[in-house]
């Protein structure tokens, strides 16, 4: 169910133009290395994608007011 729900959210965000910013991975409590790897990879991916464009909007809107 989690896979399906997250997949829904991923597709919806893609439609919104926020593709790739949500990720789901199965990691058991025994898989510390995998956890570190996934978090590191995801952090790196987001870094490459650049800052959250929503923050820019937030700032712009606040500036306007």
């Amino acid at each position, binding site marked *: 169910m989690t896979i399906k729900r997250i997949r829904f959210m991923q597709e919806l965000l893609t439609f919104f133009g926020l593709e790739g910013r949500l990720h789901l991975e199965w990691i*058991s409590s*025994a898989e*510390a290395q995998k956890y570190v790897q996934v978090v590191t990879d995801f952090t790196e991916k987001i870094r490459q994608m650049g800052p959250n464009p929503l923050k820019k909007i937030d700032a712009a809107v606040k500036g306007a007011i």
Partner: protein
Amino acid sequence: MSGSEGNFKVSLVQHPRYVDTNKCIACGICAEKCPKRVDDAYNEGLGKRKAIYVPYSQAVPLKYAIDDTQCIYLNKDRCGICENVCPSGAINFKDTQKERSLHVGSIILSTGFTSFDPSKLDNLGFARHPDIVTSMGFERMLSATGPFGGHLCLPSEKKHPRHPDRIAWLQCVGSRDENRCSNGYCSSVCCMYAVKQAVMAKDHSQDPLECAIFYMDMRTQGKDFDRYVDTARENGVRFIRSRVHSVVPLMDKTGIEMKYIDDSGHIQTEIFDLVVLSTGLEIGKSAVELSNTMGIELDQFNFIQTGSFNPVSTSVPGVYACGVLTGPKDIPQSVMEASSAAAAATENIAPARHTKTKSIRVPQERDTSREFSKIGVFVCNCGTNIGGVINVPEVVEYARTLPGVTYVEENLFTCSQDTQDKMARVIKEQGLNKVVVAACSPKTHETLFRETLVSAGLNKHVFEMANIRNHDSWVHARTPEQATEKAKKLVRMAVAKSVLLTPLFESRLPVTQSALVVGGGVAGMTAALTLARQGFPVTLVEKNQNLGGNARQLNKTYLNEDIGAYVKQLIHTVEKNERIRLFAGATVKQVDGFVGNFDTTIVAEGVEQQISHGVAILAVGARESKPEEYLYGTHDAVLTHLDLDTVFKTDENRIKTADNIVFIQCVGSRDKTHPYCSKVCCTHSIQSAIEIKRLNPDANIYIIYRDIRTYGKRELIYKQARDLGILFFRYDLDNKPVVSPNDGCVTIEFDDPILNRRVSVDADILCLASRIEARDNLDLSRAFKVVSDSDGWLLEAHQKLRPVDFATDGVFLCGMAHYPKPIDESIAQAKAAASRAITTLAQDSISVGGIVSTVNPRFCSGCGACINVCPYGAIAMNDEKNIVDINSALCKGCGACAATCPSEALTLDGFNNEQLYAQIKSAMTA
């Protein structure tokens, strides 16, 4: 060991571990600094560990130990680095062997198995080439905590990791083999684990991976196993029916060559990168010594000798055994036997229950509902574990500035006993009403801190943890400044949530200490009798007028035990037992209530009866299906197994005069519409065939099969059958035998794959191994809020780890209603179900509340979305108010409903939306 049943004196030797488990905080500094590297036995020698180590990452207790065969200090009196670096002073080189003496009523042995060592088999090349590994080794290779971090790499190429492209599995290494080793039995589990490993290996591999499994018979007789195999085959796993005779690493290091004979008799050669030997299960030397010391009878393979009717009893009264120690078996069966052994071992000492129980006294809880938040924050250094990376004083100062915080303290070890005593004192002195501990994982320490809160007069739920060790100092050791910032954020989040924490209350609900057992077959009767002998009243409901179920028709077990006599005796015992109330010809009509407090209406001979009970065991069994093929029902020579068992009992002459007898296996099983194995038929056919040979040695017997699944020690009768001259022919699903009438006989035509010719037999008796099918349990499962799988078998809570529980509390299952199984497994499961039931029945009340979901009736619009997502059947529609009700006795606090509710009418106490939003908000604000 001395003494006898009910009164054993046992002396135990506890070997020194040189680490004080009370002091060790499992920080791992000792292992980091230890200079001695040794082969890691847990990783099958594929990786290294230190001389001071935790055997594996989920070890309980999670404490270090020193390997005294390897430690430099213990062997050469040098080094001692671990003692110097240990922050809690836990190392004790003077630790000695301790002897302990115990006075007990019963003993359970569960020492398990060792994996067969294939280095004695020179034809398989193990230990001569690193890329030939055992299945245990491969299991470790796939594991994220294993030697390669879960990456599928060839062990031969350590420096430049290379992924294998082709992997082969060789089945039956050290099993079903009396020539190269003396393990004549089948290890039962290897086929399934090899398929699982192949599927997982494909999963792990980014490039296309070729997987091939070389096998003799595919023995995947467990629940849902055949489906798994079918899926694996569809996903490209190759299955090759052949026993590989030699495995040769190529001289030019380009791979490992395997030669085998294919189905058509031709020699084939293939090259693989990695070869996995599916090694069998056997009993280790020390387990044999232990059994010998205790005077327990073993069989020819050193398994503990047990009987089908007492699957967990050893030859010594009062000593029980479970798991592979009594014969090869998989996880669910081992888990069942474990519960079963617990029930058997406590049967005779049941009156002693609770006689040594002590209860703790807790102070009156302080009412904090009218107070402002006074939050105390305790920041732990965890020796140098946290303090070595994070600037703890800085975090402490930061915590002081957070709203609601009135007290902050830094501890060396917050979890140590003296700090706990101090914490309780501080809570009282400072009048704290909420506590945040910034330390390690709530998984290991939350309970401890909560106890301290309770001892200081606070509700245990006004507590929150910030994990600044596992989530912070351990993973960000190289960037201490950022780690300190993260620690502040984690503390800030915990404080933000704790402001909104409210006390949660638990109440006690009384338990009706009696049971209802539905189904009076062998499983149901065994469960009822087990409960009754443990002192609990039981209501046994049987649909038919007679007890006994399918077993009444059965003849003998594969160990040649007389089932009829056993069932007769069992019925007699059940009927005589005064704690068992028997309702024959009765069915369950309606079930109200929940764990501890069921109210069930049964209808017995047209009269309704109300039964109050605390737990229920469903043992409604299954039935032999009536085949619709092979002339069954139209020709008298065609019988099913149960028909043939009746012939044995009533018409021996028919067997004695028969010339040709044919068995066809998998009739209606393992096909498209019923893709499961009926598990018992191979053994049943062979057992019957042997019995026929005994009565009529001149009879020609033919068994036409797809895979012979005589798993475990049943393999012995397969061998016996072949020795007796019983002939076996294999057929495929797309080339089934053809049966046609021929006067008093039937003619069976089929292809013999070895002769590669069509063969025909005129049989006087044709016995069909017809499918075992589930009964229609729809009404029953609705009443008890349990579910069936797509084949109709009742679905347990967890197929491996909770094989007799339902997801719904207080309801248990056993026998063939779960899946087809032989009588010994039914009995083991029945005792296990009773054992699980006793965990509820032995309490006079159950705790209700705490972290559970609650519904706000004002917000609920009665859409019922939450009812389907609740895995525990705890939510029901209140038709009067058109909103839902949550039964907090059944709620486990998973929160699925709260996440589903569109209008946030449902909240999980202790994790409500406001608390979570506060945490998120606190994390996001810079």
